[in-house]
């Protein structure tokens, strides 16, 4: 006989009783007589860090707390009650598999579904996304201060963009181009087809062909709906993470809809590069400008000059330059006249470091001067 602390599950009163481990079960000496708890009806109710507490199935609230000596007797008679508790490795493996399947399904599904959704998005939907994108952008960029050659520079930009768009078969209704003032060098396309070039990037560009390459690249994103596809894909993944984390991933989801820091995957960047090469080639321009720009960006990075922040989100520029190396068509005319290039370089309050010599006076009907800006 050994001692144990017993509660009957009917009242919150504990009493000391005697128990005996028998072959069929645990015999409890209660006031009303002996009660046998069969071994197969007994389970542990404790957490294995203190005294052993037993309960009887089905649950009635009755408990038996054993002291060390009694526990040793019970262990000898019913060792199954003292086996190590399951570490749940099976459950963990199942949950890992479930999480992996869900992740793969979501990432793959989002990638597959994003494209048709983006391509068939109603214009109202795209317009609202554009509006939100512009609201976000307004925190980072601002309109250019007006300068004396803005209209001339803008006309040159429109002209170049239209030539590239026409050669690539992109309707002018799908895009437009803006130059903005910003603290970083970048060009990007917004969901509604707006190509935005920052003044710092224009300052960084060395030749009109480089500018043409940048514009053609961004037009590739517009023509192939990369922005909308990326947004929808990232949102799908973000929502999945949000749900899995039980609402703690809301920040990630919101971040996924951050147009400004939007990163296209490498596939989209390469596709836009290929589009640019094709469009520039068809427009009779030298696609080598894009490669030259990437080479210079890579040199700047290598020299530790630090790349303008947002450009650093793109894939490795030296690899992109390498991939485009064979695309150059030397000998083709520059993408802009020196006069137009000078006007572009003077936009947004910039100072053209190497203005062209003044053109000789050809009389008031000279076709090269005073071209009206594109409305």
């Amino acid at each position, binding site marked *: 006989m050994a001692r144990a*602390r017993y509660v009957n*599950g009917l*009242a919150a009163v504990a009493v000391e009783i005697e128990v005996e481990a028998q072959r069929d079960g645990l015999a409890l000496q209660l006031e009303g007589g002996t009660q046998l708890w069969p071994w197969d009806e007994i389970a542990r109710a404790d957490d294995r860090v203190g005294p052993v507490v037993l309960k009887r199935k089905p649950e009635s609230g009755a408990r038996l707390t054993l002291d060390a000596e009694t526990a040793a007797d019970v262990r000898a008679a019913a060792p199954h009650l003292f086996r190590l508790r399951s570490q749940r490795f099976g459950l*963990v493996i199942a949950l890992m598999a479930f*999480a992996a399947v869900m992740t793969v399904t979501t990432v793959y599904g989002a990638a597959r579904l994003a494209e048709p959704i983006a391509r068939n998005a109603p214009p109202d939907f795209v317009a609202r996304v554009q509006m939100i994108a512009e609201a976000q952008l307004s925190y980072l960029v601002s309109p250019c201060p007006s300068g004396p050659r803005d209209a001339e520079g803008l006309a040159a930009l429109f002209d170049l963009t239209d030539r590239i768009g026409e050669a690539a078969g992109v309707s002018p209704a799908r895009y437009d181009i803006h130059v903005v003032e910003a603290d970083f060098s970048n060009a990007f396309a917004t969901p509604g087809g707006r190509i935005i070039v920052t003044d710092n990037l224009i300052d960084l560009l060395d030749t009109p062909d480089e500018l043409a390459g940048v514009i053609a690249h961004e037009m590739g994103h517009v023509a192939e709906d990369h922005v909308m596809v990326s947004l929808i894909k990232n949102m799908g993944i973000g929502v999945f993470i949000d749900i899995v984390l039980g609402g703690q991933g809301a920040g990630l989801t919101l971040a996924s809809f951050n147009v400004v820091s939007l990163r296209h995957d490498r596939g989209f960047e390469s596709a836009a590069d290929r589009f640019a090469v094709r469009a520039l080639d068809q427009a009779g321009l030298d696609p080598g400008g894009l490669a030259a720009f990437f080479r210079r960006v890579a040199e700047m990075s290598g020299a530790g000059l630090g790349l303008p922040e947002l450009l650093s989100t793109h894939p490795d520029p030296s690899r992109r330059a390498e991939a485009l190396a064979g695309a150059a068509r030397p000998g083709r005319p520059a993408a802009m006249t020196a006069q137009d290039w000078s006007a572009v370089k003077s936009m947004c309050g910039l100072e053209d470091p190497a203005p062209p010599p003044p053109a000789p006076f050809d009389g008031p009907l000279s076709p090269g001067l005073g071209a009206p800006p594109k409305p």
Partner: protein
Amino acid sequence: MAATDEAEHHAFSQGASFGNFMPLALKNALFTVLTLTLYRFWARSDVRRRLWATTRIMGDPLEYSGVGAELFRGFLISIPVFFAPAIFIYYVAPFLMDPGAAYLLGLGFYLLAVPLIATAFYLMRRYQLSRTRWRGIRMSLAGGAFEYAIASSGWSMLEAITLGWYHPAARMRRARLIWENTRLGDEPFQFAEGETDLVGNLYPTFALAWFGAPIGLLAASAVNFLGVRAIVTYNLYFLPPWSIFVLAGFALLFGLAVFALCASWFNAAAMNRIAGLLTLDGARFRLNAKPMGLYGVTLAGAAIFILSLGLLAPVAGMLQVRYILNRLEMIGAPRFADIGQTRAIAPSQGEGLADAFDLDFGVGVI
């Protein structure tokens, strides 16, 4: 009515230690990472079971019988009930609806979140109590979650209108609503019985907590300012650009630590008062939480939380629970022989919404 002996003092004891808690916390952290956090439901149940099992009242341990699958089921239910509407309102509606209407919808849902959080809190407490036994007697929470949500939201509104000054009253009223509906078996707890003044003399300590917010903000600003000045004065421009964020983060933590210090007197006083107003069949309770002790475990818990990136949050919770329970005692004793089993029906699934709102801060216990 109550057969209590005023001379009897029954101290609660909480025996969780790093030795018996850390291995569990580390295992949970590992499994939680491996399963993209899905293991958190089982982890939370294990933490509760350990904390309950190491808590003894009059020599008998508490027992927690909840299981992770119940919490997981609650989470699955919360997906269509909460997440789907939330995702539609916040991520889809802005693109499909008129911007004004989408904004109003979002605002409405945000306002709805106040009673929803209160509901989630109540349901969480009901679930936890329904899985808690002492001497084999199950606890329960009666009353309606909806009634609690309405009342709590009203108090939240008053707190907002009064810039927080209603908080002591709101805290005590919430405590009353919760505790008056709490049962050990079929025996209800009483809160502030015969007491008309719930708040007592909490306001002097609350004033310190209230002013602690601007004081903390000033402290954070001062640290940030001094840091930036040191960079400029000593030409520390060789530091990487991200050091400015480290400095700002440190300043923020310092500000929060100052605020927590100012708030610890109120927190201790409020907890002591809630315990002091609580009775069970005539037996009273007394908590002797000290501001500095509470502040110490808060700081230690915060350090553990930050250094483990939140993965060891249950350890922080354990420190708090241990500190409080080891300073709690019951004076007198209820007529235990008259306390029978509850007939309240226990909920079949766990606290899905509470998980969505992270109401237990990942600690596992509230």
